[in-house]
């Protein structure tokens, strides 16, 4: 079974069909998706602004990340689940949609950036918790900002392309 067959089967499941055919299910999941996505974007931006040394320099990096990251994870989980629901309703169409592919690629890179940051760069965070972080942390913040802006723009463009 190749990818297109799999996506066709996904589209034809009862739940996916229900979402595609209902007048309110898609807008409902889309609204939740957009709301929780805004929490992901905002919370990521808060941490990135701190990593870039552009805001909150008087607050320790760890204080900001410890209070903000739980929001990011919770919001991301709901956003991803809603995204799966939306995707499944028109899987074959979205799969070949260029902005959608760009969005998914940017999301993957954002994930890698985050893993590298937490696994490597932030190991010694307590030594640069106050003031302006080292270059490697600022690079992580800048890469993150760029990728999430791409995700926001690409996500919006999906609705404008078919």
């Amino acid at each position, binding site marked *: 079974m190749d990818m297109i067959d799999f996506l066709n089967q996904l589209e034809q499941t009862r739940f996916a069909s229900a979402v595609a055919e209902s007048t309110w299910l898609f807008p409902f999941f889309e609204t939740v998706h*957009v709301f929780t996505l*805004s*929490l992901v*974007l905002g*919370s990521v931006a808060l941490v990135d602004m701190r990593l870039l040394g552009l805001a909150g320099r008087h607050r320790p990096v760890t204080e900001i990340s410890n209070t903000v990251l739980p929001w990011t994870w919770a919001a991301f989980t709901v956003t991803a689940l809603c995204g799966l629901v939306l995707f499944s309703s028109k899987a074959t169409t979205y799969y070949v949609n260029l902005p959608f592919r760009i969005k998914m690629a940017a999301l993957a890179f954002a994930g890698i950036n985050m893993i590298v940051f937490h696994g490597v760069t932030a190991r010694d965070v307590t030594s640069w918790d106050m003031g302006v972080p080292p270059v490697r942390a600022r690079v992580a913040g800048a890469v993150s900002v760029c990728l999430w802006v791409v995700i*926001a*723009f690409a996500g*919006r463009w999906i609705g404008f392309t078919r």
Partner: protein
Amino acid sequence: MMQAISDWLASSRLSHLLADAGWFVPTAQAIHILAIAAVVTLLSMLNFRLLGLTGRGPPAHNLAGYYIPWVWRGLVILLVSGALLTITEPERELMNISFRIKMLLVLALAIVTFVEHSSFLADSHYCNRSRHHLMLMRTLAAVSLVLCVTIVAAGRLIAYS
């Protein structure tokens, strides 16, 4: 009257200029979404703190001081991007019930944010003065959260109504 304003805007040079540039609407909407992200996240974090739903981090009046100035900046970006989007597609916005409800809710949110902010500016220990003060601030925080959710919903539903 709204129809007359809509027609007048639709006939303007700026409206034609922006409408002819196919990239403008999705770009302006993406900027609008990024500003929503900032406002909704900052207000949600502050309001959760005020409601006692999160305990970690700085006290609420510190968070209010850090975040609310950025909420105002975000609202300015939303107003500018929103105005340009309305000028580009006046009928889509001005004649739409979801859009009108959204604007009323935005006004309500601005008022609630202003009251939250000015209470802390006048007295950083506002919530500790009395049970009455604490309950008032918690009510404002709850209302602010509900408004954020309904504004986003109304905004998204413009496209469907």
